[in-house]
């Protein structure tokens, strides 16, 4: 059933896309006075199988590898391409639907068709089977990423399970002092959210917030707990420690403010940007703290980007 729908989508695109969406606009052309002996070099250097022959912007014909080979086989004298080019051309207009090109490729044995601008009557580009394929893939890719964003909200799980309330909880304990182990919770959480089909942008936000909170637990909090709760709308990250607590919350929220000891700074931590980074990744950050008792961060990341 899925296969049928995909085919249908491509067919729809055949009509939706125009020739101009696929045609290559930078075309190597030759003048009618270009000599046949030069054709090989031109086709080869541009890696093309044919070149339109143009005079004052008007398309006179097309000179292809085949014309060149025929000329070689006949052992004829060198001459301007105008004497050997194909004049019997099948051209396409830039505003025609892509399906016309596909029909033409089936009908004629040509590798490419010159594309003409309907208004000016001048050569606009050239279209090959390869160009059609690339344009189709691009269009499908755009459709697909739209679909991905639509369904990757992670909410489907919560729509599918039935309960008056449902939520999913991941709890991690973070040991004290081991900076080298920092980032493990963030990394595990990232994987879990990936399994659930949460959108990559949301995962990134959660990973950054969790990473910074995790480092805070290790450096300042004496270790602690990270509890992540998902429901259909948001991811809540609670970070709890029983460390020294924060005296003045407004001050620690200032970017650049840090109480990190020298050895921590030497490792590139304690820049005083951790909480700022959490704030930037989250919709909401609440800090409650009591000196000598501990600190709790309550971080909310919504499942849909506003």
């Amino acid at each position, binding site marked *: 059933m899925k296969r049928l729908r995909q085919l249908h989508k491509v067919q729809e695109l055949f009509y939706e896309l125009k020739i101009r969406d696929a045609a290559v606009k930078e075309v190597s052309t030759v003048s009618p006075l270009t000599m046949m002996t030069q054709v090989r070099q031109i086709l080869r250097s541009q890696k093309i199988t044919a070149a339109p022959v143009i005079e004052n912007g008007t398309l006179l014909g097309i000179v292809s590898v085949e014309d060149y080979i025929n000329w070689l086989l006949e052992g004829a004298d060198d001459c301007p391409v105008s004497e050997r080019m194909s004049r019997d051309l099948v051209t396409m207009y830039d505003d025609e639907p892509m399906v016309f090109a596909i029909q033409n490729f089936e009908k004629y044995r040509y590798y490419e068709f010159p594309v003409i601008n309907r208004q000016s009557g001048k050569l606009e580009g050239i279209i090959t089977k390869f160009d059609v394929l690339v344009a189709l893939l691009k269009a499908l890719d755009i459709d697909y990423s739209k679909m991905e964003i639509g369904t990757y909200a992670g909410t489907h799980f919560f729509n599918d399970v039935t309960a008056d309330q449902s939520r999913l909880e991941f709890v991690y304990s973070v040991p004290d002092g081991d900076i*080298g182990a*920092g*980032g493990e919770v963030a990394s595990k959480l990232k994987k879990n959210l990936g399994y659930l089909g949460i959108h990559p942008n949301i995962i*990134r936000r959660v990973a950054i917030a969790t990473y910074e909170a995790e480092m805070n637990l290790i450096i300042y909090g004496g270790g602690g707990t990270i509890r992540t709760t998902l429901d259909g709308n948001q991811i809540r990250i609670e970070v709890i420690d029983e460390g020294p607590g924060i005296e003045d919350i407004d001050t620690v929220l200032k970017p650049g403010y840090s109480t990190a000891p020298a050895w921590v700074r030497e490792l590139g*931590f304690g820049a005083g*940007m951790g909480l700022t*980074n959490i704030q930037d990744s989250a919709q909401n950050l609440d800090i409650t703290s009591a000196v000598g008792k501990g600190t709790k961060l309550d971080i909310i990341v919504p499942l849909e980007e506003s």
Partner: protein
Amino acid sequence: MKLEDIVRKLDLEVTSGEKKLDREVTRGYASDLMSDVIANAGKNDIWVTLQTHPNIVAVASMKELAGIVLINGRRPEQETLNRAVQEGIPILVSSLPSFEVVGRLYSFGITGMKG
């Protein structure tokens, strides 16, 4: 420019992520502060730093950076290397100091500006 071209031109030693060298790099970030990199580096950036501890892999992975260049011949710690292999993050070692590494990257057209 592809990461592998940078490796070749700067004569970098590839210590991990050999299979991820075909990534296109257009921008770079130089910093030794983890949170600063988290805040300011962007996807596919090349990151120049002197830090060698395992957290650089976590940061690079989180920000989807193209690779890490360690300067002054500093080598990744064993645990850093283990994680980099696991996460597929290229860690590249240069014998040059950071100013020189950044300058040469800039001359290849790698800039530090967003957008």
